[in-house]
C-alpha cells in the first residue's frame, strides 16, 4: 500500500521524463531565440559582454519559470520582458552609465570587410546615436518582428506614441543617410 502511494507520487522515471522534456523545450527556445534576444540586448546596452551576460541571466530565469510559459508563440516577448527587467536590475545594482557605443571585434578585420559591412558599420553608429526611446521600438519592430500594438504592450506605451517614435527613428536615419550622400557627392565632385 505504502509502496503503491510512493510509486504513484513520483516514480523516478516520470521525474526524469519531465526533466528531459523540459530540457528539450528549453534547448528549442535557446536555439530559436538566442540570436534575436542577444541583438535586442546589444542595442539596449551597446556592449557585447554585458549583452551576453544579460542573455545568460535571462535564459536562466526563463528556465526556472519555463513551466509558466504556456504559449510558445509568446515566448519571444516573454523573454524580452525578462531581459528588460534584468537590465533594470543591473542599473539598480550599481548606478551604471549607458556605455558609449563601441563596436569592437564586430568589424575587427578591416581587410576582409565588404562594402556592405562598411555600410552597416556606418549606419550602426547612427542608430546608436538615436535617442533610446526611438531606437528601442525600431529594434523590436525590425529584429523582433513585433507589430506596433505588441511593442506598445511591451513598453507600456500607447500605440500612437510607438508609431510616432518609429516614424521619427526612420526619418532621422534617412536624413542622416541623405546628408552623408550629399557630403560624399561634394567631396567626390
Amino acid at each position, binding site marked *: 500500500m505504502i509502496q503503491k502511494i510512493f510509486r504513484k507520487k513520483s516514480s523516478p522515471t516520470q521525474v526524469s521524463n519531465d526533466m528531459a522534456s523540459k530540457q528539450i523545450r528549453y534547448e528549442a527556445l535557446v536555439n530559436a531565440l538566442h540570436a534575436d534576444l542577444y541583438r535586442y540586448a546589444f542595442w539596449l546596452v551597446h556592449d557585447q559582454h554585458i549583452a551576453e551576460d544579460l542573455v*545568460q541571466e535571462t535564459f536562466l530565469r526563463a528556465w526556472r519559470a519555463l513551466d509558466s510559459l504556456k504559449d510558445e508563440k509568446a515566448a519571444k516577448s516573454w523573454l524580452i520582458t525578462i531581459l528588460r527587467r534584468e537590465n533594470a536590475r543591473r542599473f539598480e545594482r550599481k548606478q551604471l552609465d549607458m556605455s558609449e557605443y563601441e563596436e569592437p571585434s564586430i568589424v575587427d578585420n578591416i581587410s576582409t570587410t565588404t562594402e556592405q559591412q562598411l555600410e552597416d558599420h556606418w549606419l550602426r553608429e547612427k542608430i546608436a546615436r538615436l535617442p533610446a526611446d526611438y531606437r528601442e521600438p525600431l529594434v523590436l519592430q525590425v529584429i523582433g518582428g513585433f507589430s506596433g500594438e505588441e511593442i506598445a504592450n511591451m513598453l507600456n506605451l500607447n500605440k500612437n506614441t510607438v508609431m510616432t517614435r518609429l516614424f521619427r527613428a526612420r526619418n532621422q536615419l534617412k536624413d542622416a543617410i541623405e546628408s552623408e550622400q550629399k557630403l560624399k557627392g561634394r567631396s567626390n565632385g
Partner: protein
Amino acid sequence: MDDLEFRRRLYADPKDNNSDIQKGIDEDSANARFYDEIQQLDKRINSALHVEVPENLSNNLILKQTLASHRKQTTQKRWHLAVAASVAFFVGVGINYFNASPVYTSVADYSLAHYYHEEGKFSHSADGSVNLASLNDKMRDVNANFNGEIGNIVAVKDCYFDGMDSVHLVLEGKYDNITVFVIPKVQHLAQSRQFADSKIHGLSREYQQGEVIILGDKREALDLWQQKIDETIEWSI
C-alpha cells in the same frame, strides 16, 4: 490618403500593406518612388541592426543552464535530507514526550485508570506459572525483591506506570484479583495513602526507594496484603 499620411505610415511601418497604401502606390508615381526608397532604407536598417551574435552563445546558454540546474538539484537533495532528518527528530522527541508526559496528576488516579484498563485481562486463579524466583527476576527492574511468598501470583509483567519502569503484579484475592504496582520513587504525581472509587479501593505505601500500590475489590482486606508485602519486600540500592 494624402502624401504626408502615406509617408508617415510607411516610415512607421514599411511593411504596412494595407489596401490604402497599395492604392497610394498605384495612383501616384512619387509615392511609388518613396515606397521603394523606404524599402531600401529598411533593408539597410535591418542589415545594420543584425549585429553578429557571439559564436557558441547558444551552446553556452545550454551549458550554463545544465550546470545551474545540476547544482540546484544537489543542493535540493541535501535540503530534502535535512528536512526529513529534522522531521524525524521532532517526531521522535514528540513521541517520547507524549509517552513520558504525565497525564494523570496523582498516583491514585493513575492506578485506577491502569486497573480498569487491564480489567478482565487476567484469569482469576493462579496457574502456578509464576513462582517467587520469576517474580524476583522481574522485581530487579525496580531494585526490589520479595524474601518470601506473598500469595498466589496470577501474573507478573513489566509496565510503564505513567512513563516509569514498574512491575505490575496480579495476585489471587478472595473476591477478585488483587493488583499490585511496584513503582520507582514518584516525583510528579501527588501522593495519597488511601483512595477508592465506587467499585475498588487502593492503598499505597512509600518506601525510601519506591512505592507499592495495592488495588482490589472493596471487600478485600487490602491492609492485610499491605502488611504481607511490607514484611517481605526488600529494597536494594
